[in-house]
């Protein structure tokens, strides 16, 4: 039986196309993916992301523990957040995640919905003798995201917290729509916006307040379909498509979250250090499609008759009007403006390596 988020009835009332995803019945779209995508780019949208996983970490060894299981530096300021990879000893990726530091000894880890069980088993198996206590709050947490250039205008009316001075990748614990919440300036769209974490029993109140406050700004509910086109349009990887156990963060161009310059010893460090030194044989890059059509996950990439790579995510970029994709290619084909071909339904599309984000006008601070 698939689970329902606390907001399920709202999606039904809004006529969403609902499908199972990661064990939850989720809204894929309410109108069209393209309309919802553009609403976030131009105005403001509200997302139900309650399917995501949340693990609370407490204890005097919290920072040391995260420094061990994550590639990025966990010793950020209280009220700050960071993005990281979590790796296997062979350098492959267990998951990518965001971590919010709440206090010296308390963090909230937010993981991909599709990896909750796997991540929980992985994380808890590494506690050993450290002074850390982990709680899986995934089933008890409702997450409402408000994203788009008008986000702050909508959110500001629902909280006394000073959102103006809340910077990107920062968060605070406060009151939102009259309910206790963790309010974070984070998101997966490339636009300015907030992710508001509340208890399930407060979910409907928060959603309804957001939709009401957003009414005068033309707020639109956004499904998982547009969530995917929005993140791809700014080049963010999706676990399961672009990254998984078979790729390292060095190959995925996530070296910036792999802290090799410090001497922190994290799982996978040895392999990643060596790979960075030797330069990876393949790299995850962004490509523009020149012309019509677009490749999808699994599309093969060719230089003449020779296969040189594979597409990991592909779609139309609604704000750009052409196709874009992420893919893994042999070193040598990864340089900007290199052109090669994607074979789609027996025909060849020309693609050119480009810098991500594809869409460069996001309002993200």
């Amino acid at each position, binding site marked *: 039986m698939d689970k329902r988020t606390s907001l399920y009835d709202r999606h039904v009332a809004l006529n969403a196309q609902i499908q199972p995803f990661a064990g939850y019945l989720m809204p894929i779209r309410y109108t069209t993916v*393209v309309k919802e995508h553009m609403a976030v780019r131009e105005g403001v949208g509200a997302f139900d992301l309650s399917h995501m996983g949340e693990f609370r970490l407490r204890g005097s060894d919290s920072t040391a523990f995260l420094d061990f299981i994550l590639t990025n530096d966990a010793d950020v300021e209280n009220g700050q957040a960071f993005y990281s990879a979590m790796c296997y000893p062979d350098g492959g990726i267990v998951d990518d995640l965001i971590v919010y530091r709440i206090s010296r000894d308390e963090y909230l880890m937010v993981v991909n919905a599709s990896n909750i069980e796997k991540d929980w088993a992985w994380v808890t198996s590494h506690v050993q003798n450290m002074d850390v206590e982990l709680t899986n709050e995934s089933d008890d947490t409702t997450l409402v995201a408000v994203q788009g250039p008008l986000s702050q205008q909508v959110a500001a009316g629902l909280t006394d917290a000073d959102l103006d001075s809340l910077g990107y990748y920062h968060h605070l614990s406060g009151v939102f729509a009259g309910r206790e919440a963790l309010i974070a300036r984070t998101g997966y769209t490339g636009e300015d916006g907030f992710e508001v974490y509340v208890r399930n029993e407060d979910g409907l109140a928060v959603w309804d307040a957001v939709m009401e406050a957003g009414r005068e700004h033309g707020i639109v509910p956004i499904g998982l379909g547009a969530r995917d086109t929005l993140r791809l349009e700014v080049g963010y990887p999706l676990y399961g498509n672009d990254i998984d156990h078979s790729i390292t963060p060095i190959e995925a161009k996530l070296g910036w979250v792999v802290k090799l310059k410090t001497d922190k010893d994290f799982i996978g460090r040895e392999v990643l250090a060596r790979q960075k030194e030797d330069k990876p044989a393949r790299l995850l890059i962004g490509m523009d499609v020149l012309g019509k059509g677009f490749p999808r996950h699994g599309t093969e990439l060719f230089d003449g008759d020779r296969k040189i790579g594979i597409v990991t995510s592909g779609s*139309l970029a609604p704000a750009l009007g052409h196709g874009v994709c992420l893919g893994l290619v042999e070193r040598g084909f990864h340089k900007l403006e290199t052109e090669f071909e994607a074979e789609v339904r027996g025909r060849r599309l020309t693609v050119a390596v480009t810098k991500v984000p594809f869409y460069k006008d996001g309002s993200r601070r």
Partner: protein
Amino acid sequence: MSNIPDDVRYTETHEWVRRDGDRFTIGLTDHAQSEMGEIVMVELPEIDSQAARGEALGALEAVKTAEDFYSALDGTVAEVNTQLEASPDLINEDPYGKGWLVVVRGSDPSHFDSLMTAEQYASFIGE
């Protein structure tokens, strides 16, 4: 239950065809647009290019899948629906009206007569 109007004929590749003398308008059936999901990009043939019965005329890209669409008859491409460039979702919204794809000037009208009727198509898709 999809919409299967009886003023058009149907192909096994889920196109509908409407006859007007030697001009045949081709589109995608309601059943097919519903299966494909939201269409975001359409590739249409060139005007005056050759159409051949059973061969691809163009392609439809949806968010989750892509399909070619086929000509039901031999002939020449007389017109294409240029509105679909900016609004490909017309195919989803109004598949038998504003979402039409191509007009082919047919060279052999018997091709049309051999297409399925609405009743036959309904059976074909199991409705």
